[in-house]
């Protein structure tokens, strides 16, 4: 079996003689014999699979997932959005797909210019001056922003909204654990008292707009608090929402972060996505990750290059702004093509359609007895929280049986919201799906009221 290895045995032998050894083992004699003895990979197939078998394996994995056949009302930081076909065609091009990091600008202008264009688009969406070439995802983006704030303000207290994506909060917590004396304080944005008085100890306040529960809150009190406290205002935002909503820079944010998945990237069970960080230019030197700058070459041709690399680990090592090296460049390419194809009006339309479908569904659900919206006074974007009259899981199972992924059970993340279900619509949500959702919910609620659930669905509920 040749697999993807090019050498024939004859060639291997010829190369060994050039090297001046008889047997390939001679090249491994520096490895202690005790390590080499009896080494096996017993759990792997001994021989590689052939390509037809590999095609078959991956098709079978895909067939064992049920998501794509169902109407998807899941969101919470990952959105089932329309992906223009041109994106795949371009991203699949070997010149983008199989290129390395553009360290050699002479032969990497493609990736470099795309990144520069991406940086600019992110600045336009966020109202910031500069943006980087990506970090891992929305969670690491907001975490890196917090670290920036710590370095910039030299203070040790971070206030984070409880309505920031729960995974992002967890990542933030995990990263900050390593740093001594840093204090991470969660606040409830609805609680006006939090920001009544300024607090000089605060390095930054982190909020999400629209927040994890879909609400669009007034950020001005927090902005004023930050101003008064000398703290940085960090906003995490779904970039699609910024097609319609005010750029955070316009209401005073200092650093804006988020995840570019909704910009033409597949859901793919959670990744790869990509984090963006944008900030005001005075914070540039503390921005982590790669940056592409525009310059000229020796002939005066406009060109692009990685720049300000002294912020990065390969130059500054333990003093770098971050340890990030490999980033999410291909996701950046997809996002850049997405924003190019949609343009400002397309992005706005996608945002508007999502908002409209969410409100249509919410209005219909809220006419149903037993369903309430959590914090009904708050305006929301394309997601909202419904409180069910009873436990969420059995209702989800019922809805699944009708081909609907009805939402995210908030029990794990927000136990204080009783029987809370986060429901998401996007521009791909159809009216027919909304009808089906409403009907299925009625049936599910009735079944739930009918005390005992049928046996099958109870079992499923435990899995």
């Amino acid at each position, binding site marked *: 079996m040749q*697999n*993807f290895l090019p*050498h024939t045995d004859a060639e*291997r032998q*010829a190369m060994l003689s050039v090297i001046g050894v008889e047997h390939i083992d001679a*090249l491994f004699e520096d*490895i202690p014999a005790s390590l080499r003895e009896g*080494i096996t*990979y017993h759990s*792997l197939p001994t*021989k590689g699979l052939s*390509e037809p078998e590999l095609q078959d394996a*991956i098709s079978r*994995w895909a067939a064992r997932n049920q*998501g794509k056949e169902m109407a998807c009302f*899941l969101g919470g930081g990952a959105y089932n959005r329309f992906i223009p076909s041109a994106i795949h065609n*371009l991203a699949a*091009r070997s010149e983008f797909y199989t*290129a*390395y*990091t*553009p360290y*050699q600008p002479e032969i*990497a202008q*493609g990736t470099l*210019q*795309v990144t*520069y264009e991406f940086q*600019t688009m992110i*600045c336009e969406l966020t109202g910031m*001056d*500069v943006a980087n070439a990506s970090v891992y995802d929305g969670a*690491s983006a907001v975490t890196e922003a917090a670290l920036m704030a710590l370095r910039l303000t030299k203070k040790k207290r971070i206030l984070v909204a409880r309505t920031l*994506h729960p995974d992002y909060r*967890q*990542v933030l917590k995990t990263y900050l654990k*390593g740093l001594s004396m840093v204090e991470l304080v969660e606040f409830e944005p609805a609680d006006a008292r939090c920001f009544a008085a300024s607090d000089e100890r605060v390095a930054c306040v982190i909020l999400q707009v629209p927040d994890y529960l879909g609400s*669009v809150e007034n950020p001005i009190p927090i902005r004023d608090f930050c101003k008064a406290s000398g703290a940085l205002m960090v906003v995490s935002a779904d970039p699609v929402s910024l097609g*319609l909503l*005010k750029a955070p820079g316009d209401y005073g944010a200092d650093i804006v972060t988020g995840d570019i998945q909704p910009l033409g990237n597949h*859901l793919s*069970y959670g*990744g790869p996505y990509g984090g963006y960080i944008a900030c005001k*230019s005075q914070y*540039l030197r503390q921005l982590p990750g790669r940056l592409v700058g525009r310059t000229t070459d*020796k002939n005066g*041709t406009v060109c692009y*290059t990685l*720049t300000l690399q002294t912020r990065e680990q390969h130059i500054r090592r333990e003093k770098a702004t*971050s*340890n990030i*090296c*490999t980033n999410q460049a291909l996701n950046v390419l997809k996002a850049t*093509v997405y924003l190019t*194809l*949609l*343009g400002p009006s397309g992005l706005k339309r996608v945002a508007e359609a999502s908002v409209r479908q969410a409100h249509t569904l919410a209005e219909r659900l809220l006419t149903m007895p037993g369903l309430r919206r959590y914090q009904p006074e708050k*305006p929301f974007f394309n997601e909202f929280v419904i409180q069910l009259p009873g436990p969420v899981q059995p209702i989800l199972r019922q809805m699944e049986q009708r081909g609907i992924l009805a939402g995210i059970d908030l029990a*794990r993340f927000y136990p204080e919201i009783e029987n809370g279900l986060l429901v998401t619509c996007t521009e791909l949500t159809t009216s027919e799906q909304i009808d089906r959702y409403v009907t299925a919910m009625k049936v599910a609620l009735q079944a739930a009221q009918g005390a005992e659930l049928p046996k099958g669905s109870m079992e499923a509920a435990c*899995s």
Partner: protein
Amino acid sequence: MTTCVLEPCIFELSRAGAQGVSLPQDEEDAPSVAQWLPQEMLRDASPRLPEVSQLEAMRHFLRLSQLNHCIDKDFYPLGSCTMKYNPKVCDLYGALEGLTRQHPMTPNHLSQGSLQVMYTLQQYLADITGFDAVSLQPAAGAQGELVGMMMVKAYFESIGQSHRTEVIIPDSAHGTNPASAAMCGFKVVEIKSGKNGLIDLDKLKAALSDKTTAVMLTNPSTVGLFEKDILEVSRLVHEAGALLYYDGANLNAVMGQAKPASMGFDVMHINTHKTFATPHGGGGPGCGPVAVTKRLAPFLPVPVAEFDGEKYFLDYERPQSIGKVKAFYGNFEMMARALLYILAYGAEGLAQVSRDAVLNANYLRACLKGDYQVAFDQICKHEFILTNAKQKAFDSHLNTMALVKRLMDYGYHPPTVYFPLIVPEAMMIEPTETESKATLDQFIAAMKAIAEECRNNPQLVLEAPHTTPVQRVDEVAAARNPDLNYFKPSQSG
């Protein structure tokens, strides 16, 4: 003859009203969304995103793409980066909506395909590395390092040894090692490498103390040599009560030869985008799984994919876990691709991968040592280092950067340069196993031709490259007056 004009910036192509994709029309009576949102939160002005037709967009990005070098086009002898060929069968991923359209919050019982991929890959990676448990969550090698260090920290806290605060790292290490240790709040203690670029046991002994949490090593080291004293190193580190971290960037050299766990390491990361060929995509995405011994397993990030004999599920019930480092579960697509890669080779195939990777490196070394100084001229593993020592004798300006820029004119990507830092003027060459002898021979011929040029026509080399789309980019100006945003070209910085 027209001069080489590169592609305009996309914003220069923009025309108000143009659009690249058609979206559904709003229905006639569609309600305005303004009613649902606070007026003061709505945008006043549109973002200046480009407005172009689909054809204009296609041409723009297609032309840009053609300015890139890529492994599918030609050789990429980038040391430490393992630029191997990615089998195209992995691209099937993108065509399978069962994988691409799976939302991460889909319940376990409806995500068995994805979970099977994750679980199986965890098992295989544990086997290949010899460790007991694996997390696939880190997005890249550097995040894997960070997770590893976090676990080390959590472990020492759990046994009441929070006084340990130092991490020992050789000066040959990749920059991410000290950066990751520092992000974790550790003090980095750098030790000088020995004469062969390997660990100097005396220096190590001197640095080890009851403050040491861990020693981070790359093995084969970044000079491409196996740490022959690794068992002794491991003994010393563990005797000092510390743990040993394995930077898996060079795993491609030792598959089928030695398992990192057997070498005495306690924790490691794997760069699937190096060893297991998930492609680099112009800089990412990657996937940086961490593998650990039983002792460290309780600290792995949540969730971990598990199998109860019937169904796969995500296990969050890990009270000692360090928590999460990524939203959801990691770069799933990269996991699927890595798993396909491992399946494509099988156990025997992976062993052959390492054998051929090492064979190719030694072949290049043997063929080039007449013309270039080899930093450590002995049997190497998957990579080796050349320097400009011979060339600078002809012209003192002939530094490494000049040599490798010239290589572009021959169609090759330059090797990794000026790394590791311990070898001045390093050119680090890693051919990988997917390059044929014919390609290596052509590369050798090019290198020899350049050596010849250095002798006879150094100016030609010093002014290189001559045939690339742009030449000698002004990086100083780029850094001095950073222009990072088309609409705000000048930044105070």
